[in-house]
């Protein structure tokens, strides 16, 4: 029987507590962890922000956030009040020494009053430009406990983006590691917290029937898609215009999914073994030359279009986006994994904004049978078997195969075996942030990215950016909102029968 995961008594410090992430994800996640018994009896949450708030104001705001965004309803108002009573507020600026000295004093006061041992989890839910100064000031204020087997622990959870390119990522890493040991740093990629993403590991390594087929002999291609129907909601355009699809989605989420799909089986699921294999996989992807970038990548930007029956504006008309922006809102890549397992198998990756629907999936497309026994019966060539892992929505796994249609003739019909999370398990899945926060609290880094993973991902991405900067700019916008991206993306599939899957 598996022991329930319960964190040790601790203090959770959320920098940027008044921001959207804390409201929509972090505090509701902590609330659900608490009500499900994963948080200890003794814990405190300290929110840090520059607003002129008080403890009461923060509790009021977080109470509203929990009622709106929690996946589960509280059993009673008392339950919510009890949780909120653990929340405290510390006003401060992320780049002011005095703010961190005040924070230190506040932490010590709370830990004394609430009898907490001093374990601290710091969550940087802030803009990336504050990561380095904040950690530096944390160190200067001596609020970080060094790594020790005896004393209280300190950990840092840091949100993406981890840098803007390889150089800035390395620089950021150096700065953060000036304050924290690598073992204390938990770089979050919330895709790794999703139930179906983790199910990739279970699917691959807990079942014997698939692993023998998981190679170039049987698999023709793999398509990984993260499609978003949203555009720039609110003020997001300001950040996105400096990032683009490649940085925002491919460098982190898509590469993480790619790693889980393509990596070798780890010896165990401890953090280092798992992450070693992910890094090994990334090292098998050679950064592209400019010529390869030209032939193996496509970028796009959405223009005005129609979605769900209503008109939507183009990217350049979005709020806080440069009207002449050349930022890509769509990226498609054809990657080659150069190892024995995957030699010759193209990995097609695509992501985009304002695509027809929100959907993320991995499709493993198997090769045609080596010999078509049905030829003499004039039966159409059978469709390829496709294994689809749906990450969101309608989480599940399906396998399509050919079956004989009832009748006197040998007519084949493609049919699908389908597993759906929603129908197969009685309990609802926890949110990704619940799992990740809990793992951060108990010190399990399996679902967090390591520095060398981040570096290697940036090497691959930076090579693409370098190639793009040398190539002529595409004529943006080159796809209408509500469509599946630029037509040009089809040329990446010149040597496979299938096109991009329509989700």
């Amino acid at each position, binding site marked *: 029987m598996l022991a329930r995961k319960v964190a040790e008594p601790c203090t959770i410090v959320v920098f940027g507590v008044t921001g959207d992430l804390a409201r929509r994800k972090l505090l509701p996640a902590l609330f659900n962890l608490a009500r499900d018994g994963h948080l200890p009896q003794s814990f405190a949450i300290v929110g840090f922000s520059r607003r002129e708030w008080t403890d009461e104001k923060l509790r009021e705001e977080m109470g509203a956030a929990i009622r709106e965004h929690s996946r589960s309803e509280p059993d009673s108002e008392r339950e919510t009040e009890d949780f909120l009573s653990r929340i405290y507020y510390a006003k401060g600026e992320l780049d002011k020494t005095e703010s961190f000295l005040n924070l230190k004093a506040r932490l010590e006061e709370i830990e004394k009053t609430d009898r907490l041992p001093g374990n601290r989890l710091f969550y940087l839910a802030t803009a990336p430009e504050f990561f380095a100064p904040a950690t530096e000031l944390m160190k200067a204020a001596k609020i970080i406990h060094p790594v020790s087997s005896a004393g209280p622990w300190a950990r840092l959870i840091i949100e993406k983006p981890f840098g803007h390119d390889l150089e800035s990522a390395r620089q950021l890493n150096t700065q953060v590691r000036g304050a924290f040991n690598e073992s204390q740093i938990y770089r979050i990629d919330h895709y790794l917290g999703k139930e179906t993403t983790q199910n990739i590991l279970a699917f691959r390594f807990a079942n014997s029937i698939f692993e023998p087929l998981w190679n170039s002999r049987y698999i023709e291609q793999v398509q990984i898609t993260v499609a978003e129907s949203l555009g720039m909601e609110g003020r997001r355009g300001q950040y996105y215009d400096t990032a683009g699809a490649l940085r925002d989605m491919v460098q982190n989420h898509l590469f993480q999914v790619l790693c889980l799909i393509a990596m070798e089986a780890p010896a165990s699921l401890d953090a280092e073994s798992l992450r070693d294999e992910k890094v090994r996989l990334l090292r098998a992807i050679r950064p592209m030359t400019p010529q390869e970038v030209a032939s193996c990548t496509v970028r796009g930007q959405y223009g005005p279009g129609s979605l769900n029956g*209503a008109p939507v504006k183009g990217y350049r008309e979005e709020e806080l986006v440069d009207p002449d922006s050349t930022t890509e809102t769509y990226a498609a890549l054809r990657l080659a994994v150069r190892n024995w397992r995957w030699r010759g198998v193209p990995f097609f990756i695509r992501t985009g904004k304002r695509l027809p629907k929100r959907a993320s999936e991995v499709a493993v497309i198997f090769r045609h049978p080596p010999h078509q026994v049905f030829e003499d019966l004039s039966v*159409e060539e059978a469709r390829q078997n496709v294994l689809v892992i749906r990450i969101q929505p309608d989480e599940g796994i399906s396998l399509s195969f050919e079956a004989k249609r009832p009748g006197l003739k040998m007519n084949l019909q493609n049919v699908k075996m389908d597993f759906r999370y929603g129908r197969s398990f009685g309990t609802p899945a926890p949110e990704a942030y619940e799992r990740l926060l809990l793992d951060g609290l108990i010190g399990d880094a399996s679902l967090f990215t390591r520095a060398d993973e981040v570096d290697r991902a940036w090497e691959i991405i930076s090579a693409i950016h370098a190639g793009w900067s040398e190539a002529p700019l595409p004529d943006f916008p080159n796809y209408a909102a509500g469509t599946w991206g630029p037509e040009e993306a089809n040329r990446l599939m010149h040597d496979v029968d299938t096109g991009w899957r329509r989700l």
Partner: protein
Amino acid sequence: MIGFPVSLSPSDIEHELTAMWNQRGGKDEPGGVTHYTLGNVIWLGSTRHVTRTRRIFSELVSRFPCRLFLLECSDDTSGSSIESFVNAYCFAAKGHEGEVCCEEITLRFGRDALRHVTGAVLPLLIADVPTFFWYSSADPGHYGEALEQLIALADRVITEVAHMPDPAAGLRRTAEPGAKTTSLSWYRSHPVRDHIAGLFDERDSMERLASIERLQIGVAGSLKEVQALTNASVLIGWFASRLGWRVDAGAEHLFHSEQGPVAVEVVSIDAGIGMSQSQVVHFEAHCSTGDCLSLIVTGTKGGAERRVTGPCGTCRETPRFVHAREWTEAEALGFAFNSPHRHEIFQQAAAMAWPMLKRVLPT
């Protein structure tokens, strides 16, 4: 059908469908509802045809459970908004406990909203199943760019070539590589073609194939009907393509076998009881040996008469009666959706048929 159609915004459709199925019961419950989909079927047409189309679909779904999209273009509706409704068709399937159901999504809109229709449909298409698009080709310009966008969405397009502004040109386009349009009447005439092919099943009949020098095709009703001429031309094109004949558009005789030119004639025959207008009701192949093989469709219930006569004009064989009637639209569509791989046979027929149609159509 179950329940009352619920009016909602296109962005809420998927959510509403999920709620509908949750309300009806889980998939694995004995005696409950199975929600099943073999494909997406999109119909585009005008309000006045919706009721009839719905009737066809109610027959069709037991042959091909699918997600149906009824795109109803109304001249009475103004503005650029789209009104949507969801509903379901359910039937009892043999060997299955409970009902098998499939979904119907209706989008109602005016001409001003046509440009948004594809954007409403695209997110709702179910992945990993084929998509079929069925529309009336009578006035393709009526739908503007939306028609081309919906055709691009589909894996197979069903329409009626005879209703196109230029049927011969339309038929020619269906024969081009990569074309995905098939004529509905092609499927409807499948039983008749089947029996014509059956005429040549026996060895000595088969041996006569190479000696055919004249074909006569009889259609029910007037030769002024474009549908009749189209049906006849496609049938001839099919026959010619199966036998490997060639077409010489400049010659007196359009078709040529290895033996030589083949004279082809289309005649009008009074439609009998139970026969639909424009249906092919008579096939006669005359051989250089003097033999004649014929198939006469005698009505939807009476079936067809097959004859093989000898050089003296007397019957060598006892006439045989078989059932041969045109399929209904629902039957034809069901066959089309379940047999998408048969498209190349139609294309080969179309390639041989369009020169014939061009010749026989009045200018």
